[in-house]
């Protein structure tokens, strides 16, 4: 099978690409960022997803499947730029896919689309509406991209589309949304709140994506890792202290004193949990995380 991975230079995408290549699949990659030491059997195209050369990759190489990982979650990226990449990029992937005969598309989304709120339940199922746009406006582009990808299920019925809402990824690359939040010497939290955080190891996340491709999943799926743990436990196990700040000071302190910067609305995601139920995905793909919450956190600590 010929698989095109967008955003292939990201840490998780590189791992997915390597697994697929090892498995004997033909892997193409698209990214505007380089991947200098990529394995020789992976063909890379340096292009912006929204530009003509990206469409050429679809037209000339005719991939059977696309794994769309070219969305930006770095919260420090400029908002307008993120909107363009996430929304126009996602649209381009599906339009090119439809035009050039892609049979299967997997959109890699985030579990945070469900949003964190005091009255939100634990263990969201796929039937719950993604509410993050109201609880955390900075995520509204990812919610829109997720819903747009989901709309391909009825707009492009001949294409097999899967939307994966994946929990945070932690691993040796030390990259990703959660890793940057944990990057400083102290993890800033809101005093009096200790929500559950749900994450999985990079290796498990990559395996889950490969399984989704093989199982030809169609629909919207939560992909959860091992049991979630409170942020205080996460910080302790990875060898950091927490810095509990009274809520009014939380925003003032972020981005200073070596603390990470987070956009407005982030405090909801530090006060309340976003926890998903991944059992439907596990049943349909046979996925089971190989890394427990303990080994994931300890691995993250010692690879840093």
């Amino acid at each position, binding site marked *: 099978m010929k698989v095109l991975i967008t955003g292939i230079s990201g840490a998780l995408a590189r791992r997915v690409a390597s697994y697929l290549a090892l498995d004997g699949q033909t892997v193409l990659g698209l990214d505007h960022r380089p991947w200098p030491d990529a394995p020789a059997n992976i063909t890379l195209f340096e292009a912006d997803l929204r530009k003509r050369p990206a469409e050429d990759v679809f037209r000339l190489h005719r991939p059977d499947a696309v794994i769309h990982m070219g969305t930006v979650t770095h919260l420090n990226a400029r908002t307008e730029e993120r909107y363009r990449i996430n929304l126009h990029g996602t649209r381009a992937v599906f339009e090119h896919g439809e035009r050039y005969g892609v049979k299967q598309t997997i959109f890699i989304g985030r579990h945070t689309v469900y949003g964190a709120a*005091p009255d939100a*339940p634990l263990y969201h199922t796929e039937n719950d509406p993604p509410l993050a746009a109201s609880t955390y406006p900075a995520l509204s582009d990812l919610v829109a991209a997720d819903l747009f990808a989901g709309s391909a299920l009825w707009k492009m019925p001949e294409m097999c589309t899967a939307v994966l809402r994946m929990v945070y990824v932690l691993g040796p690359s030390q990259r990703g949304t959660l890793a940057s939040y944990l990057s400083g010497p102290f993890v800033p939290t*809101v005093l*009096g709140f200790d*929500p*559950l955080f749900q994450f999985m190891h990079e290796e498990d996340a990559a395996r889950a994506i490969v399984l989704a491709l093989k199982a030809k999943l169609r629909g919207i799926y939560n992909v959860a890792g091992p*049991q*979630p743990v409170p942020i205080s436990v996460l910080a302790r196990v990875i060898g950091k202290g927490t810095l509990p700040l009274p809520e009014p000071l939380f925003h003032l302190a972020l981005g200073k004193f070596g603390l990470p910067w987070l956009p407005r609305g982030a405090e909801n995601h530090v006060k309340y949990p976003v926890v998903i139920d991944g059992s439907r995905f596990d049943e349909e793909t046979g996925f089971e995380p190989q890394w427990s*919450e303990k080994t994931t956190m300890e691995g993250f600590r010692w690879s840093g």
Partner: protein
Amino acid sequence: MFPGLPEELRERIHRLDIPFNAYGLDRFGISRDTLAWFYSLLTPFYRQYFEVQTTGIEQVPETGRAMIIGNHSGGIPVDASMVMASLFLDMEPPRHVHGMVEKFAQKWPIVSQVFSRMGQLAGLPEHAVQLLEAERLLLVFPEGARGTGKLYRDRYRLVRFGTGFIRLALKTNTPIVPFAFVGGEEALPTLLHSRLLAQLTGAPYWPVPPWILPIPKPVPCRIHYGEPMTFDGDGTESDEVIEGWVNDVRERITELMRDGLQELNLPIPAHLGQDLEALA
């Protein structure tokens, strides 16, 4: 768990039917250490302060899901914590019961954190289903905040019951264990409500007893568990059918309250007597 924890409580915590991970946490975020603290603080209140006498505890299933349903009373709901203590201290094997917390409490710093670590989740239907499907015990007061917000003159008068609990029990195939908690109304009799304090704290009401501060006084309390009740249905029945079953549970709790009041030699309030006559 902390060093000074009495051996009896430590042993009971270890016998709880909760799958804890390497950090003493379960999938809902319950912390074994927090439970140890909580139950060690609760034990003197249960045994000495309120001198709670529990009967019928053998009616609560030793394993598997069940809903524990009773009357709510007394301004500050000591009934919930005393029911938790009775199932932990007097039951063999000990069991931990999950309560459903008013949503406003989720916004309070510290409080929401402590509730979460004890498995007292926000009162959402999704949580109730998840906990029952995980074969836990669920404590539900169908009167809700209407129950604890009653004034002293209305003591032991059951206010309107929600119907959600019956539909939930039917949908999840869960037996209902009715109970009556007696003494809560005397421990914190609510003379009036302070609207100002309720608004400031975001609470649905703020009880003011004769001694002003909402601190329950030590009065003997009783918990009576009744036989489990099951109903034959799937939760999609019409309101009329459901309300009939709600009334069955309500009647059973009323009878259990009367028995408890009699055992404590407390006067039976006139309206409870009328309710009982109506039943007869």
